């Protein structure tokens, strides 16, 4: 088993005829993901690599029975695309798009919760259940199937850690990239709870970074509700306060959100925290 996606997930790609959407839809298909169609307004009726393209999500869901959607459209259109997916009854919406205004995301996240749709991201690399399916841009080469769940705010840092685990012979149940934006659909705690309840996940790796307090809340959850061991890494120990480190959410502000504060909270909760992401496999062995 795994969490969120597996070989039975039926996936639509919103923006499938775009450059990014088309490129990653092909890679997802090659990995074995059941991509059952795509949506590009104005291109309904066309075909993409043997699957139908629709004008609207409602039409696409009606025809394909898809349960999962990948949003690859640009920031100006992404909030609308996410809400369209939720409105069409999609259970799991994964949004790769970066640079979406926070004001839009606050509305979108509220809307998705109201409709009972789970949103992952935005500004995330997606979800991958190794050996079964991937929805997003995580490279196939970074992970083998196994029993460690990985949850992360950062894309390429996740690849780095997945690759180090693979080289150490450690496999992964599911990788979830939750994204580095200030307001996101799914938090560390949401994913930790899923891993805790997944019989095939035995251990968890959590990759956080400076900014906000999501890792502190996660530490509380680990302390109070988790039985499975957690290894962690927090990026940004060398980042000075008041400077935004690329991700819209990564800033140490008013003494809050520093790496040291998060590392202390995680260690106090019983998690093992690495000072080097390539040391994570040692903590999971």
């Amino acid at each position: 088993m795994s969490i969120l996606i597996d070989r039975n997930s039926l996936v639509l790609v919103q923006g499938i005829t775009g450059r990014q959407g088309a490129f990653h839809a092909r890679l997802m298909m090659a990995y074995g993901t059941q991509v059952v169609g795509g949506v590009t307004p104005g291109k309904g009726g066309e075909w993409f690599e043997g699957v139908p393209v629709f004008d609207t999500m409602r039409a696409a869901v009606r025809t394909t029975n898809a349960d999962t959607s990948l949003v690859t459209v640009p920031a100006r259109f992404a909030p609308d695309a996410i809400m369209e997916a939720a409105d069409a009854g999609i259970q799991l919406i994964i949004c790769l798009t970066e640079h979406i205004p926070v004001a839009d995301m606050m509305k979108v996240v509220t809307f998705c919760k109201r409709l009972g749709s789970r949103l992952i991201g935005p500004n995330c690399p997606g979800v991958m259940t190794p050996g079964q399916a991937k929805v997003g841009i995580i490279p196939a080469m970074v992970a083998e199937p196994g029993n460690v769940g990985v949850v992360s705010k950062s894309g390429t840092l996740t690849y780095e850690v997945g690759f180090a685990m693979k080289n150490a012979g450690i496999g992964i149940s599911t990788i979830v990239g939750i994204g580095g934006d200030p307001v996101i659909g799914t938090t560390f705690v949401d994913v930790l709870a899923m891993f805790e309840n997944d019989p095939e996940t035995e251990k968890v790796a959590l990759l956080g970074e400076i900014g906000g307090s999501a890792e502190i809340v996660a530490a509380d959850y680990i302390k109070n509700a988790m039985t499975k061991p957690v290894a962690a890494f927090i990026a940004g120990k060398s980042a000075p306060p008041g400077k935004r480190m690329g991700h819209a959410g990564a800033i140490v502000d008013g003494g809050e959100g520093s790496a040291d504060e998060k590392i202390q909270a995680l260690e106090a909760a019983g998690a093992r925290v690495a000072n080097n992401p390539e040391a994570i496999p040692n903590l999971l062995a």
Partner: protein
Amino acid sequence: MKLHEYQSKFLFREFGIPIPNGQVAQTPEAAAAIASQLGVPVVVKAQVHVGGRGKAGGVKLARDADEARRYAADILGMDIKGLVVQQVLVDPGADIQQEIYLAITNDRGAGCPLIMSSLEGGMDIEELNRSRPAAIIREHIDPTLGLNGFQTTHIASAMGLPRAHWRSFGQILWSLYRCYIESDAELAEINPLVITGEGELLAVDGKVIIDDNALFRQPKLAAQRDDSGEPESESLARAAGISYIKLDGQIGCMVNGAGLAMTTMDMTKLYGDADHIGPANFLDIGGGASPQQVAAALRIILSDAKVQCVLINIFGGITRCDEVADGILTAYNEVQPNVPMVIRLQGTNASEGNAIISQAQIPNIISAQTLTQAAKLAVAAVKERA
């Protein structure tokens, strides 16, 4: 993007929030002219993007135009935490009976706007939050519904505001909420909002931060950007679509992805800190960077004279290592750097990328397999040059 105090307050005024009738001056003479026009004691305030202006001597009360001229001369050109003051705001002095804190910000955890208000305004809100958190009233706003009337009454009542001021406070809160929403603000803060001797409310100081991701639909605010305090390299990087922040160390880092970029900085510090070696910058070339962007990134890194070694760490997902390698060669031929470069390419098209680098046979290039190895090699290279 941060707005200056005067920009924030002028924005508030557009939304109907009362502010002091001041103006901005770039010279002591202009400051004196504003002061004599106002004809009352004035406050001369440095306009820089840092907190703690008052403690640094950047805010002075002047009794007349002559004093305003003298203080403006002192403050203009002053260095406050590394930023040179280029303009001052000359405001009429206010008769302050009571100071209120009022702000609207994005609550990340709750995923919605948060109003914070306190009768203990004027002081540093973070300090107040630590010492007396109960003195701050917090109210979350449903982003799909907006602010409701009962919420403004609740806030005024819960903070203990005298009833005589509820109506004008409510109007200011409505205006501030509209300002926050319509300006795509991350923070819209009035501190202090004062009650004057005449019983009127006045926004004496203000701070607005605009969401960078929303600037595309805020052209009027985007045009108010003031880069004068920012290192030139950071402005150049922004124009090239690269995320760059200058730091104090010796190892110039070029990485794809913000999380991995921070991690790479951390690794140089982990292995170099004992020898006072660390990162010279944060730099994220983003996903799917072109050879031109890679070349621009390398030029920006090397424009920092403190850089003793460049560390390139690319884990290709969307980014293709062969394109990064092309960019490195383009930039190398143009810039001819005289510092060693540690290059680690992994992921999409890594073998092609590594082949391009090794075939070019560039002196001073050190290849690394892992991030740990790359960081150690970069630290060793800096030590060797010391």
